[in-house]
């Protein structure tokens, strides 16, 4: 690896002074929130050991989350089954609610934390608004058979699965893309958002040609036994020749026209740049050095688009240290904020719905982003939006959110119980593995020192202040 780029924190976005701790950084960037035992495990496994442990995600036992999701019957159903069981009887939102709850439960309880973090990334990359009519149930299948199936696998496989996914075909109108007058919606976003990116060198003509190549790509409609399965309708396919970014698709083709285009785009060098750049931004820092992206793109192309190889290239210890990422800080999006709060406080979720409804006010309910570009991952977008976090934290730690509660005993069990004389330090350990700023820690201690006795209400207020602190919003 090239040793370019000084390890200075030039990319730092926050001024909170936090002591550098490489393993804590790694855990903070490969999990959805701190658990002291996960941090301890990472310290014992070391940098590479922890990364490989998390990448080999299927080998990590995940019984707890499986048990908690056992009653969510729609997660394993086909679109036709969900439609015929729930939608026809008027339960339009049942599957959508289960999937949203599952997203929260998996992020909180799964031990496969890196996997869940990458699932969140690709959910945004192939973003689908779950509230878009049929996507209320089609997204459940897309989440399982496109995103979760391939998130730590092959990106080209994920891309092809997405292009065959009823949820995506429906969301971006390719299900009605026909030769007579093509619908360009999916074709445009395939280029702009899913593969080569907006600066990937395509033209308006390329958009039109991709749309023509994908005419006839649709799915079986509601009521059909195969509802939700991919269907190619040759009768509305444009059989003329097409040219997409220099790729010639000869006349007379059918389904293979689209396959050719997808195969070409999947391994296009611009796709490698675009997808790896986004992933480096997600896992590493807001402005990753170009040499990091180049290294990841090289790994992408050499491995045929293996996501694990890309992650190894981005999160190798020498790369992280040389990139300056250890001194840079990212702002948690609201979902990560909320999941971190729940994980560290050893939450017990009996029913996630009320919490999810409140999370919606933070602008980051799962699968609810209305546009196909996915939620922004920027300081600009999220920095002003702090009050909704403070409100959610206050309500959660006063047990005012129905269906969910935290455990004081378990939260402090590894620290020998709550100790008001070192409460600031304890909260720093519990919620951030010691990664809160010294100023925030001191302010928390001062809050407890201002009370003569600490009852559960005061303790809850202190916990809410800990997760409302500026340095808890960063990672």
């Amino acid at each position: 690896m090239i040793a370019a780029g000084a390890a200075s924190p030039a990319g730092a976005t926050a001024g909170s002074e936090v002591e550098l701790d490489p393993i804590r950084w790694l855990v903070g960037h490969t999990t959805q929130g701190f658990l002291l035992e996960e941090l301890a495990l990472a310290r014992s496994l070391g940098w590479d050991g922890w990364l490989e442990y998390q990448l080999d995600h299927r080998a990590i036992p995940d019984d707890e989350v499986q048990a908690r999701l056992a009653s969510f019957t729609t997660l394993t159903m086909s679109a036709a089954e969900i439609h015929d069981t729930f939608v026809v009887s008027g339960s339009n939102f049942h599957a959508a609610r289960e999937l949203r709850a599952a997203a929260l439960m998996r992020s909180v309880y799964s031990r496969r934390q890196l996997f869940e973090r990458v699932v969140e990334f690709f959910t945004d990359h192939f973003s689908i608004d779950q509230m878009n009519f049929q996507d209320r149930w089609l997204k459940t299948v897309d989440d399982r058979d496109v995103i979760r199936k391939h998130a730590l696998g092959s990106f080209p496989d994920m891309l092809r699965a997405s292009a065959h996914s009823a949820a995506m075909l429906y969301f971006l109108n390719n299900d009605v893309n026909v030769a007579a007058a093509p619908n360009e919606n999916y074709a445009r976003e395939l280029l702009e958002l899913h593969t080569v990116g907006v600066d990937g060198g395509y033209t308006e003509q390329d958009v039109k040609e991709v749309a023509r190549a994908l005419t006839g790509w649709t799915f079986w409609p509601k009521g059909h036994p195969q509802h939700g399965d991919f269907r190619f309708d040759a009768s509305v396919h444009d059989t003329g020749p097409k040219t997409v970014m220099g790729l010639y698709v000869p006349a007379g083709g059918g389904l293979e026209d689209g396959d050719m285009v997808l195969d070409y785009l999947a391994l296009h060098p611009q796709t490698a740049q675009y997808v790896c750049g986004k992933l480096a931004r997600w896992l590493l820092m807001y402005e990753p050095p170009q040499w990091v992206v180049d290294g990841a793109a090289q790994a992408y192309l050499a491995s045929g688009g293996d996501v694990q190889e890309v992650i190894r290239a981005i999160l190798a210890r020498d790369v992280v240290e040389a990139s300056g990422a250890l001194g840079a800080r990212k702002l948690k999006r609201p979902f990560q904020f909320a999941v971190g709060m729940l994980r560290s406080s050893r939450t017990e979720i009996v029913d996630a719905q009320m919490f999810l409804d409140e999370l919606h006010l933070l602008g980051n309910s799962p699968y609810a982003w209305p546009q196909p570009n996915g939620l922004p991952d920027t300081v600009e977008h999220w920095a002003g939006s702090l009050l909704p976090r403070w409100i959610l934290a206050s309500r959660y730690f006063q047990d005012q959110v129905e269906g969910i509660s935290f455990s004081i005993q378990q939260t402090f069990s590894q620290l020998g119980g709550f100790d008001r004389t070192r409460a600031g330090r304890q909260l720093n350990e519990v919620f951030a593995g010691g990664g809160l700023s010294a100023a925030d820690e001191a302010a928390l201690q001062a809050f407890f020192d201002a009370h003569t006795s600490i009852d559960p209400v005061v303790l809850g207020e202190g916990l809410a202040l800990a997760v409302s602190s500026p340095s808890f919003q960063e990672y």
Partner: protein
Amino acid sequence: MDLRDRERSAPSSGSELRPSRRELLRASGVAVAGVGLPDVAVEKRGRDTLVLVFLRGGMDGLTTVAPWGDPDLYTQRPTLAIQPPGAPQGAVDLDGFFGLAPAAAPLLAPFLAGDLAFVHAVGSTDPTRSHFEAYRRMEYGFPNQAWPTAVSGWLARHLHTVEPLDAGAPLRALVTSPAMSKTLATAPRALPVEFPALFRFPGDPASAPLRAATLQGMHAMTAGPLAAPGATIFDAFGLLESIDFAGYQPANGALYPDHEFGQRMRDVACLIKADAGVEAVHVPFEGWDHHGAMGPLVGKLAFALDKLARSLEAFWLDLQAELGRVTVVVQTEFGRRVAENASLGTDHGHGGLMMILGGHVLGGRVVTDWPGLAPASQDDGDLAITIDYRDVLLEVLQKRLGGADAAAVFPGHAPTDHGLLV
């Protein structure tokens, strides 16, 4: 957390002038199109609150204000075109050439009163047909050019270059969504406030002073990107907690539709009446990207237009007494392809429609240099742009928001005054 202790500015003197003009117009019964009455030009402070409604997805201007007098409309859109006035479900005529889609008919009243103007074949001349690229270029305000690495929103740059409307105002601008908009990126004293009625410091009021002081202290100690919004939130509590958004009673029998956009506009009206020094409110409105089953008469587009038109009509009615100090601008990232596609929808286009509503608007007009819809007149299949969206925004800033530093707000753009306002 304290309520503001500064002197509140006196109500605008425009409130005395507006009704008489309006009554005069109504009583006269004459068509008021094109009549610009500068009788409200003298205001105590001469500045408005800008309400910027952004229709996300690409609103179809050819449906909303249909050029029924252009015969090519009907050859290009055999299925989707709004029919001429007089036909079943035909357009509501505006000026003998353009007409409102039936679902947008509630806009007729403010139009006839001279408070609403449409600007047609307008937009960003940047050639992108991507939503997201269009947002970036339009909201940051750098079409057709590279932009500096440290980007900011065009409206943020305006706020940085003018004196605050009210030096003591805790909040100069807000966006009614859960997170910040690009238009207001880096703006001073600006916040996302989706539900102003919920803008309250949480928890037990008895313990709030200590908790608030703790949290405020933490934000004062941080030097990162949370320092400024943290401080602004604490400043804004006093203002927003003092306004009764939940119990707000609109004036003049105005009925805000019970959906997201209608309720946002109701909140904005309440905020404007409080006269608290807020200079700009950005109101994003999602759901205008109708590639398939567009439904200009009974479908998705008609539904969205009904929401928009009834909400704007209610806002106009509610703020009759305050119209002299408010300007509403409605914009979208681009219009839609002239020709319809085979799925009864339209794809991304270029030229579009803007609206401008307020007491100083020279309304009752469709302002345009109409390029025509014939294929030879189109821009790569789309309505050509003959008015730059930056002209419209700069004219509003120049005349109603304390002056415009055009070079700072839209670098590289030489603006043209289209006489939209006084």
